[in-house]
C-alpha cells in the first residue's frame, strides 16, 4: 500500500503542476488572447463575457496574480473551464463532455488489445528466440517509429479507399442513423471503430513485444525456470512460470506508454475524423480556441493520471512484494 500512497502523492503533484502551468502559459506568452477571442466571436460578445475572459487571462484586471490564481482554481473546482471561442456560446466543459466518451472507448479497447497481443507475441518471441518473429521486429519498429497519423493515413488508403472494407471517416453512419441502443447503430459504431483501433494497435504493439521479449529472456535464465523444466513440467507450465515474473516491468512501464498512446490516438482520430477529443483539438487549433486547448490539456492529464493509478493497483495486485513493505 505504500507504493499506492507514494504514487498518489506523485499524481497529486503532477496534477498541481499541470494546473499551474496551464495558468501561467497564457500569462507568460506575448500577445493578447482576449483580442483573438473577440475577433472570432464578434457581434455576439456581451460585456460580461469579455469581463470573464479578461479575468481568465489576466488582462485589464485589478486582481493580483495570486488573486487570479485562486479565482482560476475556484472556477476549476466548479468544473468551469471557460467558454469555447469556436463553438460560442457553448462552454469548454460541454464540448469536451460530448467528445470524451469516443476517445475513452477507442483508446481503452485498443490499448488493452495491443497490450494483450503484444505481451503474448513477446513471450513467443523469447521462447523461440531466433525464429521468424525476431526477423519481424525491424518491420514492427518501423511502424512504431513512423508517426501514428502516417500509419493511419496508410490504413485509410489501403483498407478504406482502395479495398473499401471499412468506412473512411466519422464515428458512425451520421447520414442515416441516430445514436441509440439498437443493432444498426451499434454495428455501425463497431464498423467505424475497426480501422482507428487497428492503427493504435499497429502503432503501439512493437513496444510491448520488445519489452516483454527482453524481460522474458532475462527471466528464462532464472534457476526456478530451469528447475521447472528439469522436473519435466509441460512447456506451457514452464512458460507461465517465466512469463508471470517477466510481465511486471510491462505493467509498470504502462504508465510511460499510456501518454504516448493517448497522444497518438488523438492524431489518429484526426485522420479518421473520429468525433473524439483529437477532432475537437484540431478545431481548437484551427480557430485559436485557447480555452478549449487548455481544457483538453487538463482533461487528458487527468485521464492519464487515472490510467496510471489503475496500472499501479494492478501492479500491487500482481506483485505481493509491493504489499508487504512495512
Amino acid at each position, binding site marked *: 500500500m505504500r507504493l499506492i500512497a507514494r504514487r498518489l502523492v*506523485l*499524481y497529486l503533484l*503532477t496534477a498541481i*503542476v499541470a494546473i499551474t*502551468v*496551464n495558468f501561467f*502559459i*497564457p500569462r507568460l*506568452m*506575448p*500577445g493578447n*488572447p482576449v483580442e483573438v477571442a473577440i475577433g472570432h466571436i464578434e457581434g455576439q460578445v456581451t460585456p460580461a463575457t469579455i469581463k470573464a475572459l479578461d479575468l481568465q487571462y489576466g488582462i485589464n484586471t485589478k486582481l493580483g496574480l495570486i488573486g487570479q490564481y485562486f479565482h482560476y482554481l475556484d472556477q476549476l473546482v466548479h468544473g468551469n473551464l471557460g467558454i469555447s471561442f469556436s463553438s460560442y456560446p457553448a462552454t469548454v466543459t460541454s464540448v469536451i463532455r460530448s467528445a470524451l466518451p469516443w476517445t475513452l472507448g477507442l483508446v481503452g479497447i485498443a490499448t488493452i488489445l495491443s497490450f494483450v497481443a503484444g505481451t503474448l507475441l513477446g513471450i513467443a518471441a523469447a521462447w523461440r*528466440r*531466433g*525464429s521468424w518473429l*525476431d526477423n519481424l521486429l*525491424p518491420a514492427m*519498429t*518501423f*511502424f*512504431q*517509429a*513512423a*508517426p*501514428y*497519423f*502516417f500509419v493511419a*493515413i*496508410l490504413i*485509410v*488508403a489501403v483498407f*478504406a*479507399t*482502395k479495398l473499401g472494407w471499412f468506412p473512411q*471517416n466519422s464515428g458512425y453512419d451520421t447520414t442515416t442513423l441516430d445514436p441509440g441502443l439498437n443493432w444498426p447503430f451499434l454495428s455501425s459504431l463497431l464498423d467505424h471503430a475497426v480501422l482507428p483501433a487497428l492503427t493504435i494497435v499497429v502503432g503501439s504493439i512493437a513496444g510491448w513485444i520488445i519489452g516483454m521479449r*527482453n524481460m522474458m*529472456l*532475462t527471466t528464462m*535464465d532464472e534457476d526456478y*525456470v*530451469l528447475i521447472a*523444466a528439469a522436473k519435466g513440467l509441460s*512447456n506451457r507450465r*514452464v512458460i507461465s512460470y517465466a512469463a508471470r515474473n517477466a510481465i511486471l516491468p510491462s505493467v509498470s512501464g504502462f*504508465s*510511460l506508454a499510456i*501518454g504516448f498512446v493517448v*497522444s497518438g490516438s*488523438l*492524431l489518429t482520430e*484526426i485522420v479518421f475524423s473520429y468525433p473524439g477529443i483529437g477532432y475537437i*483539438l*484540431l478545431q481548437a*487549433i484551427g480557430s485559436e480556441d*485557447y480555452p478549449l*486547448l487548455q481544457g483538453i*490539456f487538463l482533461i*487528458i492529464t487527468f485521464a*492519464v*493520471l487515472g490510467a496510471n493509478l489503475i496500472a499501479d493497483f494492478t501492479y500491487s495486485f500482481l506483485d505481493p512484494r509491493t504489499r508487504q513493505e512495512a
Partner: protein
Amino acid sequence: MSAITGTGPLTVEPVEPVIKPGRRRNRMLQLPKSTKIRVGLGLALFFTLLAIIGPYLAPFNPNTSLTTNSGLPHPPSIHNLLGTTQVQQDVLSQLLAGGRSTILVSLISGIVATALAVLFGVMAGYYGGWLDDLLSMLANIFLVLPALPLLIVIFGFLSKSTSPNDVLIGLVISITGWAFGARVLRAQTLSMRNRDYVVSAKIIGERGWRIMMFEILPNLVPIVATSFLFTVIYGVGAYTALSFLGVISVSHWSWGTMLYWAQSAQAAQQVHIEWWWFLPPGLAVGLFGTALALLNFGIDEFINPRLRAAGLSRRALRRAGLPPRVQLGLTPVLRAPEGRPSA
C-alpha cells in the same frame, strides 16, 4: 575457459585467451559487426547528409506553383520525380527542403534533452539526499505529464507571436523529453556511487564534479548514447505531430507540414489515392526513426548479450549440427561455425 552448452554432442574447444598488446584499442575503433548498428548508422548518416545538402538539391522552390491551370495533384513524372501537390508544388523539393528543419529540430531537442538528463540524472544519483528526492520527483512528474497536449498549449500561444524558429522549437520540445533519460542515468549512477574507484577518488579529495565527469560519466556512455537516440526519436515524433496538427506555422516546410497539407486535401481518401503526396514524407520520418531505433537495439545488444538473436538463429544451430531447441538456464556460448564469425 570453456564453452558451455546445455546438452548436445558439441565438442568443446578451449578458447585461447589471446590478448596481444595494442589490439584492444583497435577493436574499439572497428565498426561493430552487428547488422543493426551498420544499417542504422548508414541510414542516420544518409539523413544527416540530406539535412545538410538537401535544400540545395531541390529542383524547384517548394512554395512555387509550377502551373496554375490544374487543380489536381499530378503523379510522378519526368519533370516532377515525386509528383505535385494540389496547387502544383513539387513534392520532391518540399521533401528535400523539409528534411533540414525536421532533422535539425530533432537533433537539437535530442542534444539539449540528453544534456539535461545527464546533468539531473548523474547529480541526483551521485549526491542523493534531498537533491535526489527533488530531481527524481521532477523527473517523475514530467514522465506522467502527457507531453503532446502540453506542447500544443505552449506552441498554441507561442506561435501566434513568433515566426517558427527551429532552435526555439527544439528547445521547447527538449523540456518535455529529458525525464526518461534522467531516470535511467540516475539508477545507473546510484549503482556506481559506492564502487571502489569512486570511493578512492573521494578519499583522495577529488571534487564532486570531477568525479562525476571523469569517474562516473565514462561508464555511462552507452546509456547516454541510447538515451540520446531515444530523445531524437521522440523529437522527430513530437515535431512532426505538432506540424501535422498545424500548431507550428504550416508554411514552415517540414515533413510534418507536408503531411498536414496532404491530410487537409484528403489525399488518402480520394478515389485515385494520391500516394506520392503522403508516402515520401511519412516514409522519411519512419525510416529516420527506424535507423535510430536500430542503432539503439544494437547498443542494447552490445551491453546485454542475452538479447542477441544472431548466432543462435535456427539456421545457425542447424549448421552447427545442433537440433533447434529452447535454451534454458545459462546463456549458451556457442562457437560460430568455421569461417563465419558470429554477428
